[in-house]
């Protein structure tokens, strides 16, 4: 397999509302960040791929306007997925594996502020049996969390109590104090969090991600090009993504077999990672993912604060890959695991293993 690495990562400051900027005005500075980091112009990039959603924007073909920020002239080789940018990165990665391109620009953005996100996401659900009931995304996550709380705590790590979930929230937002882009930083201790009222029982506000706007971009490069563009490239050793059945009622919500399978295929279990960036918008989902990924206690999970600190839809998964890569770039980690999710209650999951060269 051809060597491909993430050689640059950039993101916007994630904010509850960015009404003062259009999508392209939000995306463009992030594109400049990553292109400047590698000293390339958009026209020198071999392949460009982005991820975004018309339903977030409330407009059809919304991605065509964001393309203005790229400077696609002369015309570029370019594609778009209506998915989180992590899958745009996956598409770009396969493009580099074919040898058709040496470099790729991947970006993603989402503004949740224009709409009511909890309501918008109901439109993702089975349009015949479920969407007509308008079950909002927090409620669905709460169903999953309750299933986890009901499950026996077993040797493999299934099951959790509310104190465990509060611990995830407090750890994530405390870690986010070191992340200048995060939307929600700092946290009272878990015990204090447990004194707060429920939002949708069993979830309290601290168990849920902030709703906000943001953008992210990465540059991928192959082989020697990567070495030339980056002092310590974050080599993609493996990447895979898998899907689960759509209906919550046919799934075991305490498990994520698609994450386990993707991790196996990505080579996660060949050697332990020393850092993991998990796309777990809800605290309970981190517990589920940790078990499927067989993460030991020693692994640093979400030092960026994760999706609990900033969860710009369509970009938050790409940001996990970017944060993991950035940790490799700066020498803070040698082998990182990155995960992205999409769909209700972890329906789709992507797992990647990133490594730096031995120092």
């Amino acid at each position: 397999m051809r060597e491909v690495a993430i050689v640059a990562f950039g993101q916007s400051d994630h904010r509850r509302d960015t009404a003062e900027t259009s999508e392209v005005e939000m995306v463009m500075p992030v594109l400049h960040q990553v292109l400047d980091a590698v000293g390339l112009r958009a026209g020198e990039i071999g392949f460009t791929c982005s991820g975004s959603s018309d339903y977030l924007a409330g407009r059809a073909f919304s991605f065509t306007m964001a393309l203005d920020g790229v400077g696609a002239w002369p015309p570029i080789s370019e594609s778009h997925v209506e998915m989180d940018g992590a899958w745009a990165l996956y598409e770009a990665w396969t493009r580099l594996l074919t040898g058709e391109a040496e470099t790729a620009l991947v970006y993603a953005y989402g503004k949740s502020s224009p709409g009511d996100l909890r309501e918008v996401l109901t439109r993702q659900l089975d349009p015949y049996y479920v969407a007509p009931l308008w079950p909002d995304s927090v409620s669905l996550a709460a169903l999953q969390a309750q299933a986890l709380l009901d499950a026996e705590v077993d040797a493999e790590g299934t099951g959790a109590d509310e104190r465990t979930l509060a611990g995830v929230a407090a750890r994530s937002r405390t870690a986010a104090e070191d992340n200048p882009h995060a939307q929600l930083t700092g946290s009272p201790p878990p015990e204090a969090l447990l004194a707060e009222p429920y939002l949708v029982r069993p979830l309290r506000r601290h168990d849920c991600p902030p709703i906000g706007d943001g953008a992210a971009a990465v540059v991928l490069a192959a082989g020697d090009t990567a070495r030339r563009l980056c002092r310590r490239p974050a080599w993609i050793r493996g990447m895979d993504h898998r899907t689960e059945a759509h209906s919550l009622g046919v799934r075991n919500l305490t498990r994520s077999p698609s994450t386990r399978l993707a991790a196996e295929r990505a080579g996660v279990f060949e050697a332990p990672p020393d850092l993991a960036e998990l796309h777990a918008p809800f605290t309970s989902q981190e517990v589920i993912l940790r078990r499927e990924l067989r993460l030991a206690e020693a692994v640093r999970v979400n030092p960026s604060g994760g999706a609990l600190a900033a969860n710009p839809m369509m970009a938050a998964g790409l940001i996990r890959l970017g944060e993991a890569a950035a940790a490799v770039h700066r020498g803070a980690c040698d082998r990182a695991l990155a995960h992205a999710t999409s769909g209700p209650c972890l329906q789709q999951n992507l797992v990647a293993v990133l490594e730096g060269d031995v120092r």
Partner: protein
Amino acid sequence: MTPASPPEALQAPLVVEFPFTRSLGPVQSAFLTGLRTRTVLGVRTTDGRVLVPPVEYDPVTADELTDLVEVAPTGTVTTWAWNPAPRRGQPLSTPFAWVLVRLDGADTALLHALDAPGPDAVRTGARVRIRWAAERVGAITDIACFESYDGAEGGPAVPHRVTFTDPVRGIVAPARLDYTYAPGRAQSRYLRALADRVTYGERCPSCRKVYVPPRGACPTCGVATDEQVEVGPRGTVTTFCIVNIKARNLDIEVPYVYAHIALDGADLALHGRIGGIPYDQVRMGLRVEPVWSEHGRYPDHYRPTGEPDADYDTYKELL
């Protein structure tokens, strides 16, 4: 909740609303028709599991499923969540629990609402039954919600052999989403100037082209445009068509001319209607100027200035 945005950025409500017409496959049709007659159907998979609600394709094997069975309207809560503040469109307007319910005779669970006095009255494993809607039309909302139940457990699924008369073939799924649209910095600048009937383009610092309307970036250079340049008000028709069919939601008498107009000083054309001249006399190269209506945000139309037509070579790059 939402912090005020800087005064220079415009915002306005955007309602995206449509009554979607959804045709149904045979399994869905049978299930929803069954609900209309207070009958709950499931579907049996090739390996014998009973899926309720019945889906068209097996989530494990991808097989097409057709073996309909009938299950009980009673079941067991497999997980729940307390919703203290019901939202638009949800099954109940008072606080309720979202539940996954495995109906007696089924192997999978159905998502719906449970009417309960409070969260302490709900638990996983609770026994519940369907409360039917008074008026049923063949939709998932024919189940009004679930309610607590302490009667006997329903039996296993039994084959469904009845053929429904007048089956439900489709549903209408109205969907309304409310957005707040914000066009961003560059377009807000443009729109504010337009209110004074001044058209500002923005010049790209790199290629020096003038964009109107400006959208925040020079699309060929990928950099912000920020130097405002007044363009127009006159311009040249670069190309056009004659519209003979009424467009949706537009009250304009046909035929009329819809044209691309390159305002003087702009490096690309914008769109407008041409008036003040018979439609069949409009031509490429016609010189025009805007005509404003009292309250319009944009010119109502453009009319001939009387100047000689522009030479093709002067605008062919703007086509």
